[in-house]
């Protein structure tokens, strides 16, 4: 019989008893789903670690320390140049660099507009972009940014509120820090990080406020330094000596050790879950075998009839073997999808994404067909070796 027709025959037989076929599959589904889940999470954490390490060039690790003011409207950013100097001199053995981490979007700062001092939000641009439109005046250009022109764009809402019309706002002055910017345009329809009060040229702004203060600093460690320990020490140093220690707190997240911790947990879980999945697959395999034996003995007449009309022992064996394999492969594919879904769900609660690879798919496919072959072979052989004369009596 042609192989394709043999496949159809097996499929037909499975459909005769859909409930039993489905129940037999469940063990395989669970086993494969568990393996795929844990592998997807393991892949995810590994990829994340790799990315983190690459971010620190040549394998040097970094930490960021954030300053959180107690009062969110406070003018202080937390770190001053003086703080940085102190860290540099006290921790020169462990640190290779200490820098402000410069925000470029959604910066909160004190500005003077007209005669009012106010806290405003601003984002920095390097030239025109598609995240906002200009309704009046003209945009900040690339060259404005490059030659440090002191120009600014004002949000339409604020313009109407403060100046009545957009035209009135054009040409007025805006002071940020020591610099005074001229408002050259009104912007509207801004999205995401650009929906702020002012847009300023990035280079101009960073140049004027260079290395004076910030709310986040980035520490780069020398090779071989225990990052967690060192970070802890620097934070407690800041708590004693930092310039803004009374108005807020200093905190750091140590991504490296967080991730390697998770990675360790996942790799020990991987062994554990693989062992459980292995047992589950074994039991599921026995279930498949059991069901195939029952099927073979229930369908003795069918086997006799097929043999009588000219089926070879080989095609009878293949038919039953294919039934077992189809059962386990469908179970495996279902398990693959469920495992993928589960991993994606779990990773919502973790700082990385689950990654399902083609290799995982092949694994699910391979393992499930293997279970089908291993546990389907004996019943299939039994079917093929039935004595035709005894059946026909």
């Amino acid at each position, binding site marked *: 019989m042609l192989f394709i027709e043999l496949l159809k025959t097996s499929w037909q037989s499975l459909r005769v008893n859909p409930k039993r076929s489905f129940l037999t599959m469940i063990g395989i589904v669970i086993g494969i789903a568990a393996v795929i889940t844990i592998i997807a999470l393991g892949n995810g954490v590994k990829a994340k670690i790799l990315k983190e390490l690459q971010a620190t060039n040549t394998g040097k690790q970094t930490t960021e320390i954030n300053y959180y003011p107690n009062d969110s409207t406070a003018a202080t950013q937390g770190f001053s140049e003086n703080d940085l100097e102190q860290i540099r001199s006290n921790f020169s053995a462990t640190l290779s660099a200490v820098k402000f981490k410069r925000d470029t979007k959604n910066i909160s700062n004190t500005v003077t507009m007209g005669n009012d001092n106010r806290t405003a939000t601003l984002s920095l641009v390097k030239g025109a972009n598609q995240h906002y439109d200009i309704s009046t005046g003209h945009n900040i250009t690339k060259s404005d940014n490059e030659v440090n022109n002191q120009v600014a764009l004002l949000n339409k809402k604020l313009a109407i509120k403060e100046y009545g019309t957009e035209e009135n706002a054009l040409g007025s002055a805006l002071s940020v820090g020591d610099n005074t910017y001229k408002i050259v345009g009104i912007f509207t329809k801004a999205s995401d990080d650009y929906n702020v009060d002012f847009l300023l040229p990035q280079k101009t702004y960073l140049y004027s406020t260079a290395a004076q203060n910030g709310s986040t600093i980035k520490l780069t460690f020398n090779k071989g330094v225990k990052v967690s320990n060192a970070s802890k020490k620097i934070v407690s140093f800041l708590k004693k000596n930092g310039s803004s220690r009374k108005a807020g707190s200093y905190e750091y997240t140590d991504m490296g050790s967080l991730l390697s911790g998770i990675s360790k947990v996942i790799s020990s879980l991987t062994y554990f879950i693989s062992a459980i999945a292995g047992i589950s697959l074994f039991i599921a395999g026995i279930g498949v075998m059991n069901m195939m034996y029952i099927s073979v003995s229930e369908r003795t007449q069918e086997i006799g009839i097929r043999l009588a009309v000219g089926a070879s022992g080989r095609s009878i064996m293949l038919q039953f073997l294919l039934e077992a394999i189809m059962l386990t492969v469908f179970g495996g594919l279902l398990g693959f999808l469920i495992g993928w879904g589960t991993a994606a769900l779990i990773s919502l609660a973790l700082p990385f994404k689950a990654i399902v690879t083609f290799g995982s798919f092949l694994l699910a496919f391979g393992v499930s067909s293997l279970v089908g072959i291993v546990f389907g072979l004996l019943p299939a052989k039994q079917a093929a070796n039935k004595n035709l004369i005894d059946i*026909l009596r």
Partner: protein
Amino acid sequence: MIDIKNVNKFYGQGDSSFHVLHDINLSISEGEFVSIMGQSGSGKSTLINIIGFLDDEFKGEYFYYNHPIHEYTRTQFSKLRNQNVGFVFQNFKLINTLTVADNVGLPLLYAGEKRKAIKEQVKDVLEAVGLPDASEKKPTNLSGGQQQRVSIARAIVTNPQFLIADEPTGALDSKTSREIMTLFKELNQKNKTTIIMVTHDEKVALQSERIIQILDGRILSDKKVNA
């Protein structure tokens, strides 16, 4: 066509072995319609199973168109069965989970054809046995006579050299039996299909051309039916 020489058949092995057929010699030519009669347990089914290539475990020689079948392997037997002989059994032997059309097409699938390609052939034989509308039904929804027609359709779908029928009317009432016999005679006369049939029923046997009597595994008599 069929030449059986000194065939002996034992069931079981060693001490418990049971000698069923004793030195059977038998020749059947193309186009014959032969009945085999005898008491229950006399070995009729055993003999017909050997003739129909269902049983390859016998002693002696069996030449089919001068080919020494007794030397064939199991796989060769499957092929021989598939391509040369059709079976009709007393209890029909249909697969109840398959439709009538699938049952009838089964021998063609095992002959290596595609499901799509055999539809027409299946339709034709179902028409020939008088069941043009039954193809999508399940066998259990048909009467005994109809089921036997389906099994005859399955037996003739490959255009076999000969049919063997083991008490084909044994489970049917006399009216249905007559219909089935009419069908057999038609096949024998129109299509020149050789038919070898086991029966208990004298009346049924008299419709064939030749009657072989068996008693305790030996051929008792072998006579032409007087027209």
